[in-house]
């Protein structure tokens, strides 16, 4: 199971990188970034996974003398942080893109052919 999960999540990471490399539309870039982020988060969960591991919560009904059965809780805690950071980045990126669109009227960072560089804008 470990390897299946790992291949799947690394696959998502690679899809995200592919999107970031090939696309120029800003919203698509942001979506690729989010796919990449999901892939990394899943990878982190996988790296903390243990076969047959339980949710790391001390149950009220069970006497857990062998808490080692838990999956590793630390990567899950890290993923929580990572998700929140991703949320903040995405919100900020969207507002930057909106600003850019209002300023230039386009949704791509690439310069079109008829534009010339002018030092004093």
């Amino acid at each position, binding site marked *: 199971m470990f390897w299946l999960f790992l291949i799947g999540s690394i696959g998502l990471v690679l899809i995200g990188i592919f999107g970031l490399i090939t696309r120029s539309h800003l919203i698509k870039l942001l979506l690729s970034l989010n796919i990449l982020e999901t892939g990394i988060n899943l990878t982190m969960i996988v790296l903390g*996974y243990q076969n047959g591991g339980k949710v790391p919560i*001390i149950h009220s009904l069970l006497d857990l003398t062998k808490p080692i059965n838990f999956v590793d809780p*630390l990567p899950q805690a890290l993923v929580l942080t990572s998700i929140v950071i991703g949320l903040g980045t995405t919100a900020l990126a969207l507002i*930057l893109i909106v600003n850019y669109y209002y300023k230039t009227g386009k949704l791509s960072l690439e310069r079109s052919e008829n534009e010339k560089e002018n030092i004093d804008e």
Partner: protein
Amino acid sequence: MESVRPSRTIFGILLILFLGYAFYQGIIDKNGKPLIGKTKTTDRVSYNMIEKNVNRSRNVSNKLFSGIKVPYKPGTKNLEDGTANIITSIVVNYRGFDTLGEVMVLFTSLTGFLMLFPSLKRKEKLTKPSFIVRNGLIPLYLITLLVGIYIVFHGHLTPGGGFAGGAVIATGLLLLLIAQFKINEKLLSVLETVAGLSFLTIGLLGLFIKGSFLQNFLNPGPLGNLFSSGIVIYINLVIGLKVASELGSLVNRFTEEE
């Protein structure tokens, strides 16, 4: 429509093939056997966090941390951290400073968001919500609020905590916005500032009372009780408040009319 140049696609395919291959090469040894996946939780720091014997563990050479095992059952008192949910205990207690950083990230991005929000007038008027939407959403909002508060308060016992609960409460605020109730943005920003300052105050109290920033200066209490685990529940409360007010003012900004 956006056109994708074929040269770029080929470059992208080659690049991800290379990266995938590099990753594969990184995680196998010389005989082609994988280096990762042989999980041994006992070798990791989280083992002592599960066992709740961080303070009693010793550093044996640099390999293992052997500690004294604390047999714990529901209701056990004086564990070093009375949190039943070990993930919450890591997020809020063992690695509480990360969570402070996380809250700061959210605050930073919201501040940037509000600073850069373009001042433009809405082109179309919003349609008035129907009677059913306006009145049906109130009980729904109350239920959402209740669920959110429950999740915040039980973060140390069940899955959940400040971030999840705060997000649920913010969803409730979004419901209010659909019904076109006005939310006072000033109030949200005051709540946010108060929550942020109280997080830092809890941390500084730990520094001045116990000598370490964000240290638990309250009694942990029996495992499994609602008011157990010392400052964890208060930090969860503060985080919940902060996340709810931040996400609330984020969605609120979109519906504002000039």
